[in-house]
C-alpha cells in the first residue's frame, strides 16, 4: 500500500505547477470583480426588460423638443364658431358659447349701436387673470353676421401695478370690456353677440 508522505520539500517542478495554479486562481478572482463592477443589473435603465432585449447605455439629450410634426401653424387669433349660428334681434346683446363658459359668468351685456359692452367674472379661480380675450360678432337687421372684433387683456408682470385692482375698485378677477363695431359694419350693425375665447388664471 502506498502512503502519503507530506514531509520534506516539494520538487521544483511541483512548485512551479503550484505557482501557476495559484496565479490562475487569483486572476480568476480579479476577473470576477471586474464583471461585478461593469455588469448592468436589472435596475440599470440601460438593461432591458426581458421582452425587449439588450439596449445601449443612456445618452443625455442636449436639445429641447421643438418639432411637432403634423401640427398646422395658426394664421391668426382664434375665431368663435358659435357666432355664426346666432341671429340676435335688433338692439340685443347676447352671449355666444365659448370653451371657458364653465369658468366665468358674463353679465351686463348691452349694445348701444357703436359697441358691445359686458363684464366677465371669473368664478373658477381667484388668482390673477393672466390672459383674457373675448370675440364679438355684429349682425345686421336680417340677423346676418357682418363683422367680428376682439378684446384682449394680458397681465403685464413688468408693470408696477400688475397685481393691483383696476380703477374703480374692480377686482382683478372681473374684466369689464367694450368692443367697438368695426368700420365696415357701422350703420348696418343692429345687434351683437360676445363670447370668451381665451382665459388663463395664474
Amino acid at each position, binding site marked *: 500500500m502506498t502512503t502519503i508522505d507530506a514531509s520534506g520539500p516539494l520538487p521544483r517542478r511541483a512548485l512551479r505547477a503550484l505557482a501557476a495554479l495559484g496565479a490562475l486562481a487569483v486572476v480568476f478572482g480579479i476577473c470576477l470583480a471586474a464583471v*461585478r463592477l461593469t455588469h448592468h443589473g436589472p435596475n440599470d435603465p440601460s438593461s432591458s426588460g426581458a421582452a425587449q432585449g439588450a439596449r445601449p447605455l443612456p445618452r*443625455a439629450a*442636449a436639445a429641447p423638443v421643438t418639432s411637432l410634426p403634423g401640427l398646422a401653424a395658426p394664421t391668426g387669433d382664434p375665431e368663435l364658431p358659435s357666432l355664426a349660428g346666432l341671429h340676435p334681434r335688433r338692439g340685443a346683446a347676447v352671449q355666444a358659447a365659448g370653451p371657458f363658459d364653465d369658468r366665468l359668468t358674463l353679465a351686463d351685456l348691452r349694445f348701444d349701436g357703436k359697441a358691445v359692452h359686458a363684464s366677465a367674472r371669473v368664478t373658477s379661480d381667484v388668482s390673477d387673470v393672466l390672459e383674457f380675450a373675448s370675440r364679438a360678432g355684429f349682425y345686421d337687421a336680417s340677423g346676418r353676421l357682418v363683422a367680428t372684433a376682439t378684446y384682449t387683456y394680458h397681465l403685464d*408682470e413688468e408693470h408696477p401695478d400688475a397685481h393691483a385692482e383696476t380703477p374703480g375698485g374692480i377686482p382683478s378677477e372681473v374684466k369689464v370690456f367694450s368692443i367697438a363695431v368695426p368700420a365696415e359694419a357701422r350703420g348696418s350693425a343692429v345687434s351683437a353677440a360676445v363670447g370668451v375665447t381665451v382665459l388663463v388664471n395664474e
Partner: protein
Amino acid sequence: MRKRTTAATAAFAVIAATAGVATATALPATAGPSGPAAVTAAAGNDGRVKNVIYLLGDGMGRTHVDAARLRYYGAAGRLAMEQMPVVGQNQTYSVEKNSGQPGAADFKPNFVTDSASAATAWASGVKTYNAALGVDAKGTSVPTVMEMAKQAGYATGNVSTAEITDATPAGQMSHALARGCQGPSYSAASCQDTTVTGQPLPTTDVRVTPIAKQIARNGTADVILGGGLSRFDGADEQALREQGYQVLGSVASQTVATRTDLEKSSGAKVFGLFNRGNLTIEKFKRENPSAPQAAEPSLPEMTSKAISLLDGGKNAGNGFYLQVEGALIDKRSHANDAAQTLEETKAFDDAVKVALDFAKRDGHTLVIVTADHECAGFNIIEKGTFTNAEAAAPPTNVDSGNTANNSSTVRASGNTKDATRSTGPINGSGAGNTKNFAPATFRTADDPAGVQDGSTDASLWLTYLSGNHTGADVPVYGYGPGSQKLAGTIDNTDLFDIVGSALRLS
C-alpha cells in the same frame, strides 16, 4: 511523492481561489451615482438610482408644512415628508426679462418667482423670467430633465391637480415664452412676447405654440394625469392616440375621465384628465360624496397609479422619472382659505407617503419633496392675538427705556383691533363678513374633545399676509441615493443638476 504533490497543489489552489473571490466580493457592486449613498445597504439600497420621484407642493412654504402637521398629527407628530432623512431649503428667486444668469453682467434678479419660472429652474437648470416655460430669460429654448430622461430611455410621468397645461407640469413638457399660451387656441396676446424676442415669432415656432398642442404631440411624458380637458381638442386626441396613448374619457366630446377609468388603465402611455379645469379640492369632495366631482381621483391615487404604470408592464426595467404636483395648495392659498389649504397639504403629504412606500420597497429610488415658492404669507399666530390686518394701526415702535432705539416715524400708540376688520374667526363667528381679516382657527390632536374649528378655544390660529406669492425660501426633503445633496441651502436650479446626476443624464 505524486500524491503529496497533488494534495499540496489542491490545497494551494483552493486558498488562492478563495482569495480571488474574497477580493471580488470586497469591491463595490457598481460604479453608482456621484456621492455616497444616503441610505445604508441594510435599508435595501446600494447607491444605485433607477427612479426619481419629484413631488412639488405648489405654494407650500414652511408654515404650510407646520400647520398641516399640527392640524393632523399634533405638536409631537410628523408629516410623511418630515420623516424623510434629508432636510434643506430652496432659494426660489427668478430674474427679469432679458436678464443674464447669476454672475453675468446683465443679471437682474426678481425676488418673488411665479410657478413658471420656478418650474423652468428645476426642469432646465436656468433662471428665467416669471411666466417663461422651458426658455431662458432671453427666450432661448432649453431642454428639460423630463425630455432628457425620456430620450435616455426612462419612462416618464407628469401628475398634477391643476390643468396639465399649467405652469408646473408644463415646465417639464413644453417650451413657451408665456405660460398663458395654454390652448386650445393660439392668440398673439397670450403667446407672443416681443419684449423678449424683439419681433413676433412665426407661429411655427414651438415657443408660441399652445402648450396643449405641444403636450399632445411631443411624447415627453408617458403618463399624464390631471385637469385641463378644455385646453385640448379632437385633433389633440387623435395625435395622442397615434402615439400609442390610452386616452381616458373623451377629449373630442369633452367628457372627463373618472377614478374608475384610472383604475382600469394599463399600458405604457396613459393620458387622463379628470376635470375641464383644475381638479376639485379634497374638502369639497369629502363634504359632497355624491357630487360628480367626487369621481375625480385624489393626488395620492394618481401618484400610486402613475408609479404602477411607470414601473410595471411594458415600462418594467427601464426606470422612471415622475413629477407630482399638489397644485391646489397654492390656488387655495391665493384665496386665503386655510381650511382648504390644510386639506390640500394633507393630500399632498399622502402622495408623498405613496412615493416613500414605493421607494422603501424598491431600494433604488430618489424621492425629492419641495415647493416652487411660498404663497400668501401663511402664518401661525398665538392663540388669542390678532394680526396687523385686523388692527387700527401698526404696532408701537418706541423704546422708552432707550429712545435711541425708536423707529424713525414714531408710533407711540397703536396695535389695537379694528372691530370692522376683525369680527371673529373667519371660519367661525366672523364667517359671514367678506371684509373680515380675522384668523381662521382649527382644533388639533392636542385639543380636548369638543373643541371646534372656528372657535376661539381652538389652538391653531392661521392667517395670511396677502393673496400673492412671497419670496421666502421653501423646504426641501430627500430620501434615497444622492439625497444628501439636498441638505442645507440650495438654489432651485440645483435641483436640475441633482436629478440629472441621479439619472446619469449630466
